[in-house]
């Protein structure tokens, strides 16, 4: 098999094999790879590039997992810098955005695995945020957190999800997937749920009508065949459930964590991963360039390497900034639209489910 054979399969809409994925990762020309990924991106979305207005809230950074790649967590509740956000404080953060006339359409909630909090805290958190802004979409708790709740509170994953859903949960973020390989997880995040458990949480969520995202944290100790295997597992679950909205490649950040001597992935490696993901994950509709993690210039460039979404306006991002991200803490919708337009694409504001709210051109014409 050579590149042109894989390109033929892509153009015919045939799913790529593990060998095809490896061939793409090893293809010498980044530009050729990007051009092919861009064909798929434009076939699916034309020039449209999505973003939303969102707010990040981290309920706690206290975490019992000992992930080598993490710069955010604190081991104990009384450790320096450890925090647990009160429900009132979380609501106050949302209300501050609402008062400023900058209402988010989505709250993104992820945090550490804190074994000293009652389940009721998380239910109250969701309910209070929903009460403060009834139309808002709550994208909360990675599969790793959901699985931790299942273990800690001795309820099935389904029961946990049903209760959270009843309290206001709308969708799941895609974090914690890292690399879906037991070898890699043992090396970098042995305290997290297993690859099978991560997949099962998403399968259960999808069955309950809860959409989710999926991620890949790459650039640590994984091999290329493990990256391909990761993509194929996600594609397989998507074929089964159709519940994934977007795939988000996340390059490893080396600052202030136990893998600090490991080099960060290079720009070419990051964009290659975007392009390969767009080509292998033909059944996952959106590919997100999370600008907080990538930096603005790389995220913008990714819009020509398969990505069609830049995530949101964010604000109060902690996880990547503690790991050395030098991107801003937030962007205005106008700045996001300008960045998209400067890349020759059409900005489209969306909600969590990728329903179009308006194009920036439409907003400006109003």
């Amino acid at each position, binding site marked *: 098999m050579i590149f042109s054979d894989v390109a033929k399969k892509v153009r015919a809409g045939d799913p790529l094999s593990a060998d095809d994925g490896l061939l793409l990762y090893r293809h010498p020309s980044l530009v050729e790879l990007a051009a092919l990924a861009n064909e798929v991106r434009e076939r699916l979305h034309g020039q449209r590039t999505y973003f939303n207005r969102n707010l990040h809230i981290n309920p706690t950074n206290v975490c019992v997992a000992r992930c080598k790649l993490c710069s955010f967590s604190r081991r104990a509740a009384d450790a320096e810098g450890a925090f647990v956000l009160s429900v009132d404080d979380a609501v106050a953060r949302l209300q501050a955005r609402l008062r400023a006339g900058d209402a988010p359409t989505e709250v993104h909630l992820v945090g550490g695995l804190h074994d000293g909090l009652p389940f009721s805290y998380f239910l109250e958190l969701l309910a209070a945020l929903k009460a403060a802004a009834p139309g808002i979409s709550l994208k909360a708790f990675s599969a790793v957190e959901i699985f931790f709740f299942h273990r800690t509170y001795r309820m099935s994953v389904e029961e946990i999800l049903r209760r959270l859903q009843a309290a206001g949960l709308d969708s799941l973020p895609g974090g914690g997937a890292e690399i879906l390989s037991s070898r890699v997880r043992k090396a970098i995040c042995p305290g997290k749920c297993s690859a099978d458990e991560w997949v099962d949480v998403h399968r259960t969520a999808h069955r309950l009508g809860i959409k989710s995202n999926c991620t890949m944290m790459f650039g640590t100790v994984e091999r290329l065949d493990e990256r391909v295997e990761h993509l194929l597992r996600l594609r397989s679950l998507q074929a089964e459930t159709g519940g994934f909205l977007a795939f988000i490649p996340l390059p490893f950040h080396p600052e202030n964590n136990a893998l600090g001597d490991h080099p960060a992935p290079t720009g070419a490696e990051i964009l290659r991963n975007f392009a390969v993901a767009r080509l292998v994950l033909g059944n996952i509709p959106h590919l997100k360039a999370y600008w907080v993690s990538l930096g603005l*210039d790389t995220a913008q460039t990714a819009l020509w390497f398969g990505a069609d979404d830049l995530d949101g306006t964010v604000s109060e991002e902690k996880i990547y900034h503690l790991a050395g991200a030098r991107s801003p803490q937030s962007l205005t919708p106008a700045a996001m639209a300008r960045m998209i337009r400067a*890349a020759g694409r059409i900005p489209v504001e969306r909600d969590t489910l990728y329903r179009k709210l308006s194009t920036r051109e439409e907003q400006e014409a109003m």
Partner: protein
Amino acid sequence: MTLAPDLDIFSLGRDALAKVRTLFDGRACFVSARRLQVDGSWLGPAEATCGLVDEEALQARGGLRSAQKAGANTVVCNQDSAVASEALALGLRVLVRVPFAAEEPASQRRDRLEKLADALGRSPGIDGVLPIPVGEAQGIDTLAFFAACRQACGPAHVVVDLESFGHKLGQLCLSFGADEILGSIVAERALRLGARASSNEITRDEAALLVRASGLVPCERLPDGKVLTL
């Protein structure tokens, strides 16, 4: 400049990379650089092979000879500057600064590159061009500009300054016509901890990897200007 709807970024990249392969046999250099400041101090690794002085800093440093005495071996000057010929006469390497802004009109950019091509044609001793963003660099626009520089600059090197573009975007420029990267490149980097957590330094091995991962053959530019293929 908003990327024109009819601009084919992939064709630009293919053409630029093909030119690098033809002109330089697919090789791209990295060079460790330190920069002479107006106060006479150096910014960058002491072991750097390139001592860079900007034309703007020359007056404060007492002119070219004084800067050369202090260790400068490369001058960055403006297009059509008289400093270029003086520097060449002193045996210094000359790079021409090429400013570009993300918001500028395409016609203005085209004119600048045409004038640059003329200037390089008149001064064959000028060794390279150094694109410098005015304001914040945009990703895809930067790549398009590097590709356009490659087409405009004949056999001159197109140099990417990692301090201006960062490592990620800087490396991507190598896939769009740049054939040399310049930055704080050291033999051994300290751990990214404490005050050094945000260090911009990369090792020679990492610099070589940036080049190799772009599909080019890494070389190192040595203090005497010679190039060592790795």
